[in-house]
């Protein structure tokens, strides 16, 4: 698990970041924070020499102060996901903004904030907070997640006991140039319950987030996340999830722009017949570094997992994919699929992929692939020969490239919202 031999400098850096730990906290939280602190000290903060940080420089994510970033210009068009009419919970620079938020009342969903629940002695989130994060430290260490568990003072605690009639939207906004945001969210989907969580952001000059989700047997969790656009924020976002028997998790992220985004995911399929689909579309032009680091762990038999990650890169943008399908010995009849692809719109851009399979069961179906390519010149000519102008033809082909990822969004309204954003990004960055 945690590396006992953290380099002295990495440990020292961790100690100094931990000095900012929030005081107090009820018994349920103190224990989890203390354990996270120990985990982090054993690992140290990440450095370039760590196996899973070779392609992504963590310096801006580990530095004492968040590198300054101007808040994004007001976005054009509709607010993200408005058509889905979600219940909106707004955080500005990581601080809850009740005036901008909807009343936190939704049938079937108990909505609380970590900051409110923290002083209590007992809380339902006790078994969840920091627990999946701790299990998710192997085989890929995630020190920034442990840092978050130790330090985060706020976030959402959602307990879903029925089928939520509206999605919950976590709306993040940035106001200050140096905001260093750290939110920790816990979601428990009880057996048979269902929730859609929509996230938009990033909402800080630097964001180090953790979302822990436990999807009970037969439950469903949909997650659609929008990172961007035209922002200067650095992001390390973590999804940790446990998926129970016959339960489903479907997560999609659109990342548009941003100098540094590290999206980590650890999902365990813990009950028979579970399903986990993780998808991402990343769009970068110029100063853009985007990293997906994913572990899909099949613990129970007969589960299905899909990882579909696509990146469109131009003008020196960089993409990284590190993805693992980890199948334990008892997880027979596993169906695992992983594809990571980059479309490079010029020769200055690059994509680094590290797909991994680690399989201990013998009766499984697992496939993975990774490709890097340019726009197909023959397809481009064919479209143009029918009268489609070059820029429009390129846009169609870029959207076609991303389609497999976007198709993972089950809800047509949300998929349409994402498609429109993709299309607009491609149009803004064509030529």
């Amino acid at each position, binding site marked *: 698990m945690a590396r006992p031999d953290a380099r002295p400098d990495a440990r020292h850096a961790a100690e100094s970041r931990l000095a900012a730990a929030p005081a107090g906290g009820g018994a349920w939280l103190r224990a989890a924070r203390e354990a996270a602190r120990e985990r982090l000290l054993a690992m140290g903060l990440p450095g370039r020499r760590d196996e899973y940080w070779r392609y992504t420089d963590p310096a801006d994510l580990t530095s004492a102060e968040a590198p300054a970033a101007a808040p994004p210009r007001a976005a054009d068009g509709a607010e993200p996901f408005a058509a889905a009419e979600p219940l909106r919970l707004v955080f500005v620079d990581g601080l809850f903004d009740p005036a901008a938020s909807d009343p936190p009342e939704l049938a079937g969903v108990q909505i609380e904030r970590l900051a409110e629940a923290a002083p209590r002695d007992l809380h339902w989130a006790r078994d969840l907070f920091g627990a999946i994060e701790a299990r998710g430290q192997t085989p890929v260490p995630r020190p920034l997640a442990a840092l978050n568990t130790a330090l985060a003072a706020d976030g959402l605690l959602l307990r879903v006991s029925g089928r939520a009639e509206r999605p919950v939207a976590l709306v993040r906004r940035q106001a200050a140039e140096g905001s260093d945001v750290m939110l920790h969210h816990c979601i428990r989907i009880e057996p048979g319950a269902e929730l859609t969580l929509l996230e938009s952001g990033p909402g800080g000059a630097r964001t180090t987030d953790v979302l822990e989700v436990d999807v009970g047997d037969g439950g469903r969790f949909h997650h659609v996340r929008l990172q961007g656009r035209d922002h200067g924020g650095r992001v390390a976002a973590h999804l940790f999830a446990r998926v129970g028997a016959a339960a489903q998790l479907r997560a999609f992220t659109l990342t548009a722009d941003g100098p540094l985004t590290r999206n980590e995911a650890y999902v365990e399929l813990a009950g028979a017949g579970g399903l986990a689909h993780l998808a991402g579309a990343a769009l970068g032009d110029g100063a853009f570094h985007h990293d997906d680091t994913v572990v899909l762990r099949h613990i129970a038999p007969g589960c299905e997992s899909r990882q579909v990650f696509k990146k469109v890169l131009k003008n020196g943008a960089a993409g990284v994919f590190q993805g693992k399908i980890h199948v334990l010995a008892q997880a027979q009849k596993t169906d695992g699929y992983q594809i990571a692809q980059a479309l490079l719109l010029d020769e200055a851009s690059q994509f680094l992929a590290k797909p991994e399979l680690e399989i201990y069961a013998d009766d499984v179906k697992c496939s993975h692939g990774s490709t890097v390519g340019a726009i197909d010149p*023959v*397809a481009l*000519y*064919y*479209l143009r020969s*029918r*009268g489609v102008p*070059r820029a429009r033809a390129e846009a169609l082909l870029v*959207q076609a490239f991303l389609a497999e990822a976007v198709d993972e969004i089950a809800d047509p309204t949300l998929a349409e919202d994402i498609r429109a954003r993709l299309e607009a990004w491609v149009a803004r960055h064509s030529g």
Partner: protein
Amino acid sequence: MLEIRNLHVELEDGGTPILKGVNLAVKGGEVHAIMGPNGSGKSTLSYVLSGRDGYVVTQGSATLDGADLLAMAPEERAAAGLFLAFQYPVEIPGVGNMTFLRTALNAQRKARGEAEVSAADFLKLVRAKAKALAIDAEMLRRPVNVGFSGGEKKRNEILQMAVLEPKLCILDETDSGLDVDAMKLVADGVNALRDAGRGFVVITHYQRLLDHIRPDIVHIMADGRIVRTGGPELALEVESNGYAGILAEVA
């Protein structure tokens, strides 16, 4: 309408000459057939006219209604009224056939300063044309040419031609790989478009297609040149004797 004068083309890579002085004039209302052995440059001619990369024009000219085709981008040639039904239609995963067709039609209309066609009108238009070509709704929903049989791809080319209503249609071996019924559908599709203002260049090896689409003029191409031009009887001569006799005569 189409005027090709002394067209010389070589490959961009390596400079191999492929077309060595092609002359061809097609008037509105005419159907020209081009026949000739494999490798004689028929597809190259159609690609150069439609603006594919990889070829260099070293001499000569090609104009459509007086406009210099060779100076235009491929999409401008399409908007000017040129259409090539590909010998090998291209598969485009992820782009729906309907989206593709509607984008193409409206882009051409926009380039010509015409109003765009509404979604509802477009649907009506395509359904009618597709029905005549026995193209079902399922095929229209699929990505462009993906998973289509050879015959379906060729019919899809003719559907595009029917929707785009170009001035000059070039069909490059649209009949190869078609069974008799599909060939009849394709020929009917072409014949439905024949009118005084529209010209056709039909590249084929077979009289079969020309039984359905009666050409006015038949050309034989060999080694990058048109070596013989005649009436429909020239195609019959090829049908019974092959190219050998004709080529020996001109050599």
